[in-house]
């Protein structure tokens, strides 16, 4: 499975502006597989992205909007993208602020499907 995960991450990382991508266990906030540019703190991205996803997911559920299928935190200095995958995993990408979110989203959803297999 790991090869397939790494291959999926590789495709995300090819999107211009992506600094790193990973599979994260949503309950633990721990990295399952990662592909990062130098200087990106994978542990921090995994822990914080999973925590944010849980909070946003909780809020969405509480207001009756159901499960979160894709979430994006846009900030001055970058963008954090999160998509849920099977086996309680998340696909997470950290990218530049001007990244093509549509393209990135497409690759992340594809990666999420990879994790099912």
């Amino acid at each position: 499975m790991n090869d397939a995960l790494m291959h999926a991450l590789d495709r995300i990382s090819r999107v211009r502006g992506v600094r790193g991508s990973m599979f994260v266990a949503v309950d633990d906030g721990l990295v399952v597989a990662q592909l990062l540019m130098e200087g990106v703190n994978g542990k921090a991205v995994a822990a914080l992205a999973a925590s944010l996803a849980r909070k946003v997911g909780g809020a969405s559920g509480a207001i009756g909007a159901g499960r979160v299928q894709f979430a994006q935190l846009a900030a001055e200095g970058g963008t954090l993208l999160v998509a849920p995958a099977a086996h309680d995993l998340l696909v997470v990408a950290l990218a530049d602020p001007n990244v093509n979110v549509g393209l990135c989203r497409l690759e992340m959803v594809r990666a999420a499907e990879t994790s099912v297999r």
Partner: protein
Amino acid sequence: MADDIRTISDALARDPASLLYADLSELLRRRGDVEQALRVAEQGLARHPEHADGLACLGRIRADRGELDRAREAWTRALAVAPGHVGALKGMGFTLFRAGDARGAVELLALVVQAAPSDEGARRALAMVRREAAAAPAAPAARAGAAGERPPVFLGLEGAAADILLCDDRGRVIAGGLTGADASDVSELAAAALAGVSGEAQRTAQYLGLGAWGTIVAETDRANLVLAPVTAGALLLVRRDRSVPIGLAVRVAERALGAASAWLERQGA
């Protein structure tokens, strides 16, 4: 129970800073000694204002005294500290039910049962509320008034009172409103659930070296949500149907953000 009360009072007397006050208060409440339960809870919360178990207990005491608004306030505070707090969610479900919103109560209690499958009380309450919801006609019209009483900050924007909500970081509604699937007002619940999100987003951006955060966009099963910080502490939520493109939802959020900032500035916030 009398023995338990004595044991816990003794332990609390030895260590007044202990969190056991919440257990003691709950035991007193169950014994029917509501006034003393209230005193114990208030004393404990003076020391531990952010203690979710204590706040949830205070809510139950307020409800026992028939003070439903103050009960809801305590539960809202508990949910702001601990968004998934089972006791507080149960309490909120109870207030919705009492206010005639059985469907809203069903949604909440279903969350509780999901979070705490072994909670028999919650299961029974859910079953009972479900029967009521099936029997009751949809959407008590009286409840739709809640949003109407709030300041008309988003006037002129689509969904001004049903799909746009301004709340603070303590889980309190400031303006706008959000309705549930049955058109009942779920603003307070939403505000409580959103309380932790703003701080979490800020912390995430800070630790990842991303600077100030601008928006969170979430595509969910039933809606597109846009969240944005207004001023320090205030958070805006805009909900749009899944069929509305994300880009458009973000535009609406930007306009709402402008309206909210201007209004907050006029209020001197």
